[in-house]
């Protein structure tokens, strides 16, 4: 029996010239765990909104063809009936939560559809999503990962047969991401739900999904079992989907003739162990450890303590006597799980938060003594959410704003140069919010460096981006190394950390638990377990083959592992 059947579906948004979905025919088996992949704008989200009846019942437009969910046509059912068959979790899931407390939100839909046992249903859904014991908590007390689980519980509470999640782990650290997928696996295997995820983290697809659906330009390219789907490396890469690093490495080695061609490519570390078993690690000259420049202290924290007022009871302590120096010229990555204090540390550096005790100095001058306009010349912060950086009605105005109000003589020319450098010339008159994710990121970086600050802080510069855009941003960051002397990035993205950072600071519960180069950090298994950071998959692969190997990128891996 099929959970979803689509026949000849063509759909265009109201007023759109071209259809977003073109002639789609598709069957999703009951109990499947399906990943939908594809370029930005290929119609993935639109397809999902067709399944839950938002299209065409709520969002109008031109709708042709037939969509059947659980045997019933979506055209004949109303959104309410469909919601009990298909649950949907948005990418910006926090806007989907409308009630102040956890149990309340989880049972909200059941209450609205007049189930007398709505509280029990809500509790059951929370239990299924691993949120038991938090029923009475308020939403803002939850972490990002828990909020996402709650959004999921809200959808699960109606016990739909199909669950759709739009980019479920885009904003989460690896530990929380694992948690979400474990919950999804349990819902799939134990409770027999059909699960559809829009996902571009192919490592997770390889680990958890059963089938992969590739979409391109509003059409279905193919629907294949995961193992088979990830073999189509070239085709996926053409759509800006990057298979797991293990698969990429095997693909390259196969091309170079170092692995037998024709053998299936491994998709997980486990499979890789067998596939690469013939290879031996030839430790090339270890990359020279990045010299620790004993330059001037750019940022210095001395005995900094900070606690937040909490709604109830004792204030929550974030930092207690923190000491940390960041020197001029360093490229620092701040890592740690959600809530470890990374963003708070950055807010302290730009003077947004004031510590209860201790001093923070920029270039050996306490922040408190500085004027705001001096401060902004020295340090600049690029937010995690680029939309909050757009305060004007065009990108050009946003980039030039800081220079213009300071009356820099050549602000026009410098704006032009920045637009050029970040490839924003064509977009310069558009409002930042109406651009794509990658364009927004580029624009926010350009805004951040406009005043040529001595220190640049970046909060999660690659969050919410698909892999291709992420690569592009990493490229931009590399490219910026010459204009920015000192940079600090707070991130969960270990590939970015490995490629870019010269020094890694690991935060846990407001304390620095480790500080060193990537080799020093990732080689320590105890640390990896303690903090829940996860090295890039290729690093784990190399270590699985040879405990001494330190490979951070696919290139390093293919260079390092050769035929014995």
């Amino acid at each position, binding site marked *: 029996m099929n959970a979803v059947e689509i026949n000849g579906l063509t759909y265009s948004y*109201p*007023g759109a010239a071209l259809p977003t979905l073109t002639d789609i025919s598709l069957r999703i088996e009951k109990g499947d765990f399906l990943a939908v992949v594809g370029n930005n704008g290929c119609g993935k989200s639109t397809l999902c909104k067709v399944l839950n009846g938002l299209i065409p*019942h*709520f*969002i*109008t437009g031109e709708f042709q063809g037939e969509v059947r969910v659980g045997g019933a046509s979506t055209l004949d059912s109303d959104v309410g009936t469909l919601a009990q068959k298909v649950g949907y979790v948005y990418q910006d899931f926090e806007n989907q939560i409308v009630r102040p407390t956890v149990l309340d939100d989880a049972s909200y839909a059941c209450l609205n559809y007049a189930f007398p046992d709505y509280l029990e249903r809500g509790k059951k859904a929370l239990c299924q999503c691993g949120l038991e014991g938090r029923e009475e908590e308020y939403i803002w007390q939850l972490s990002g990962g828990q909020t996402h689980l709650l959004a999921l519980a809200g959808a699960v509470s109606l016990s739909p047969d199909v669950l759709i999640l739009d980019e479920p782990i885009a904003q989460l650290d690896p530990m929380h991401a694992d948690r979400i997928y474990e919950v999804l696996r349990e819902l799939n295997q134990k409770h027999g739900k059909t699960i559809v995820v829009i996902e571009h983290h192919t490592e997770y697809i390889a680990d958890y999904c059963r089938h992969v659906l590739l979409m391109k330009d509003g059409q279905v390219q193919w629907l294949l079992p995961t193992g088979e789907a990830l073999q189509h490396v070239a085709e996926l890469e053409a759509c800006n989907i990057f298979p797991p690093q293990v698969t990429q490495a095997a693909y390259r080695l196969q091309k170079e003739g170092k692995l037998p061609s024709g053998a299936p490519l491994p998709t997980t570390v486990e499979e890789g162990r067998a596939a690469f078993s013939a290879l031996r690690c030839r430790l090339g000259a270890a990359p020279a450890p990045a010299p620790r420049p004993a330059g001037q202290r750019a940022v210095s924290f001395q005995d900094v303590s900070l606690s937040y007022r909490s709604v109830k009871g004792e204030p929550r302590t974030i930092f207690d006597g923190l000491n940390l120096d960041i020197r001029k010229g360093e490229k620092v990555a701040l890592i740690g799980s959600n809530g470890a204090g990374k963003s708070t540390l950055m807010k302290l550096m730009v003077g947004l938060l004031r510590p209860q005790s201790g001093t923070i100095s920029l270039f050996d001058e306490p922040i408190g003594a500085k004027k705001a306009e001096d401060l902004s010349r020295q340090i600049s912060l690029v937010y995690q959410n680029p939309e909050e950086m757009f305060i004007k*009605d065009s990108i050009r105005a946003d980039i030039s704003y800081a220079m213009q109000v300071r009356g820099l003589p050549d602000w026009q020319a410098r704006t032009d140069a920045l637009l050029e450098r970040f490839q924003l010339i064509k977009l310069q008159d558009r*409002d930042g*919010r*109406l651009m794509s994710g990658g364009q927004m990121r580029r624009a926010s970086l350009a805004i951040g460096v406009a005043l040529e600050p001595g220190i640049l802080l970046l909060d999660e510069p690659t969050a919410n981006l698909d892999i291709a855009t992420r690569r592009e941003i990493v490229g931009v960051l590399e490219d910026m190394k010459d204009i920015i002397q000192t940079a600090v990035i707070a991130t969960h993205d270990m590939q970015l950390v490995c490629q870019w950072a010269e020094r890694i600071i690991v935060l846990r519960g407001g304390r620095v638990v480790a500080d060193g180069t990537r080799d020093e950090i990732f080689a320590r298994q105890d640390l990896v377990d303690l903090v829940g950071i996860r090295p890039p998959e290729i690093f784990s692969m190399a270590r699985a083959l040879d405990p001494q190997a330190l490979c951070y990128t696919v290139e390093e891996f293919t260079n390092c592992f050769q035929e014995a």
Partner: protein
Amino acid sequence: MSTVQKTAATQSQKLMIFVLTMSLYGLATLFTELIPKFQVGLVEFSVEYFLFIPLTLSMLFDPLSAALGAATGELVFSEIMLGQFGGLGELEKFLTVTIGVYIAGRLVRDPKNRAMVGVAAITGTAAQLLMGTIVDIAKVQFAVEDFEAVAGLPESVFATEGFAFLNDLLFSGIFFCLLPTLYLVPKLYGKIEPLLGMAPRVAASTTSGLSPKAILTCVIGFVCAIVAELAATAGMSLIDWEAEWAESGTALAAGMVVATALAVIILLVMKKNGERNAVC
């Protein structure tokens, strides 16, 4: 089928506008409660409104949803959330804000026409302020019983309220309603609509224009606002507490004390029994 779809879509769009205006204006009024007011002589310089927010949105979208959203936002965020709920007076505020914003929104036929936007913004503000002033004067007059008898009080109330109206209109009205609206409407036009999945408002749109029906609705609303205030005064003479006490005297009051005290004791005993039963 198709008609059902159409109404569902406009319903949802209205809800979106309601939610949007409510959140934004609510947040803004929360600040107005907190930004200190100060006076130079009689001139009160206060950031009385962020009324430009609902004004702008009512010109870009469905005026009624924006107007109701704004009034609800103020009620919920700044009155209920901060515990500043003033009873009947809030109904008056709710209605005058709704009417003012609604009038402004209906006056605009084409959001790209700056003159039209400006006239609408100032008209809406003036309407809201004027209604507020009339109600305010009535309020003080009825609250202070021997209003006319107090030397200087009536004149001072009329003078301060009248002055406040002019001052608000010229100061808050221009700086906080007219100018920001003129700044925002053209900037947002064509940008904010796609985010909500709507088509921008055009001259031919049916939501614009002030029909006699709309005016009638506004007038009825204002009458309700005044009635809400006058209900208090009417009630005063009807209930006439003081007269009642004077006639029945101390005995009745003592009776009330005894009766309520008895009620308290009985309830206490019942509660104790109830708890004992629950334990057993």
